[in-house]
């Protein structure tokens, strides 16, 4: 395939307030190539998650896309009607949300949640969908999936639930996965497992990933390219190695310097002076 899988150009997202529009994203442009992993970093409120929501068309009122365009696989998707967008959502673009503890329906067997997704996007029968669901659970590393498929979310640990959430995002075999801080709610030892699982699975299935996170370490390990966001804009975007070694934007330089290391014994952790301007 030629050309980028996802192409965002001059994306502008506004929230209508009483005092007039509040510009939350301004002139955001980036591309994701097929199979590529793009990391998106930035501090809270920089617009990372908002970018993800805008791409899948789930900006809730009063937020709206005020300008720019989003193309997915060559097709413009920022102005598609909801019914067509639904087919893309979950089907061609999978999403992994932040908190696995709350993003599974507590009263539904995980198998039903998986088959529901598969049936919504693939022309399969119930039995085939169930077989696929079992296969996916196995693939995300859940032991004896044919037994666990009939379990409820509370019977799974946090890490296991995040594996289920990953299976949910991937089971319709999307071309792009948006992972919005997939490890923030997990403890450190599980984080590494989940990240490497996500990396391996998306590579095996040839899916591109937009990985939204605070964690530069995760980005450095996983991403091909990285976009640094600040106050609703992309401050810098480039190859991970290049950007880590030689950050150009002063904010990126600050961000790199703020990563604590064990090698150097610092008295005080570095911090970036000031706060983001109020939007």
């Amino acid at each position: 395939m030629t050309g980028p899988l996802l192409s965002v150009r001059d994306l502008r997202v506004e929230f209508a307030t009483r005092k007039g529009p509040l510009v939350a994203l301004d002139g955001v442009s980036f591309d994701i190539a097929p199979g590529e992993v793009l990391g998106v970093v930035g501090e809270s409120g920089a617009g990372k998650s908002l970018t993800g929501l805008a791409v899948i068309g789930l900006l809730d009122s009063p937020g709206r896309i005020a300008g720019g365009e989003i193309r997915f696989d060559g097709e413009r998707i920022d102005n598609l009607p909801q019914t067509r967008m639904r087919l893309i959502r979950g089907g061609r673009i999978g999403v992994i949300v932040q908190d696995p503890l709350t993003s599974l329906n507590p009263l539904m067997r995980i198998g039903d949640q998986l088959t529901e997704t598969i049936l919504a996007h693939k022309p399969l029968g119930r039995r085939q969908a169930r077989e696929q669901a079992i296969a996916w659970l196995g693939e995300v590393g859940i032991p004896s999936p044919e037994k666990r498929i009939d379990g409820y979310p509370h019977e799974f640990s946090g890490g296991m639930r995040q594996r289920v959430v990953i299976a949910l995002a991937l089971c319709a075999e999307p071309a792009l996965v948006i992972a919005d801080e997939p490890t923030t709610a997990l403890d450190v030892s599980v984080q590494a497992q989940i990240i490497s699982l996500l990396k391996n699975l998306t590579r095996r299935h040839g899916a591109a990933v937009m990985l939204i996170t605070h964690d530069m370490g995760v980005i450095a390990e996983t991403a091909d390219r990285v976009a640094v966001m600040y106050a609703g804009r992309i401050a810098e975007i480039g190859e991970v190695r290049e950007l880590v070694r030689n950050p150009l934007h002063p904010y990126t330089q600050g961000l790199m310097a703020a990563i604590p290391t064990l090698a150097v014994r610092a008295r005080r952790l570095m911090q970036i002076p000031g706060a983001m301007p109020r939007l």
Partner: protein
Amino acid sequence: MSEIATPPNSASEPARTLIGRLKDNDLLASFLSSKVTVAAGIVTVILFLAALLAPWIAPTDPFNPATNYLSDSFDPPSFIASGDPRFLLGTDDQGRDMLSAILYGLRVSLAIGFCSVALGALIGVSLGLVAGYAGGWTDSAIMRIADVQLTFPAILIALLLDGVAHALLNPANRDESAFAVLVLSIGLSFWVQYARTARASTMVEKNRDYVLAARLIGLSHARILFSHILPNVMGPVMVIATINLALAIITEATLSFLGVGLPPTQPSLGTLIRIGQNYLFSGEWWIVTFPSLTLAALVLAVNLLGDWLRDALNPRLK
């Protein structure tokens, strides 16, 4: 040599059998921990069974004129000196066995209670779900109607609906339609509570991440509402339904007592009490007393169960 704790065998799953699940069920444990609740549960089960099995356990058929003799009318209960041993709780003015009449009346009262609760819940929960999920003017429209209805007492609404239905219906089949009219009027007078409860829960649930996740999967709104949100809203609705069952039975009894409910040919407990109170001052106390006691026991037991359910399902009281 130090010992290493062996991890529990992952293959030994917790018991998935029904009995195994019941044993470590919190709900059951909290049920058994309160004597009052257990007593209420036993009374409820006995009354439900009696109602269900009425045609088989009742000594006589109170609706069969061939087996009821007017010569038997106003017989006192059998445990009184002047009582007739055939009639444990005495007979009414038509010579019907009170025990049988109560068993059949219980059956009718419970049937109306269940049907009207189901109707009210169906209407209320559907409207509440839609109102809570859609928000905006849909929400306002539905809830304003509910607010207006709340300004009238439920019994008044039921009376009004009952009166309108009777006026519209052909007097010839009034008696046959009385059941349906009662269910409709009681059900419609109670939907508001369900709507409010369902709406409040929906508004909480719709912001949960699993709903967002369902939207991310690309499910339709109807699907999200009914297969994801509805099950999570049913807990509080069940509590209301239990308490409303008692209320519905009382309302039916009140309507029947006022004479707009069921006719004496298919008496509910309320009808029996209405018939009986005519004879209270002439000394035939048993005709009004036993149906009243049954009604009181039923409503009290169901209410106690409802209270227990409300507390057991309320996470803040744990």
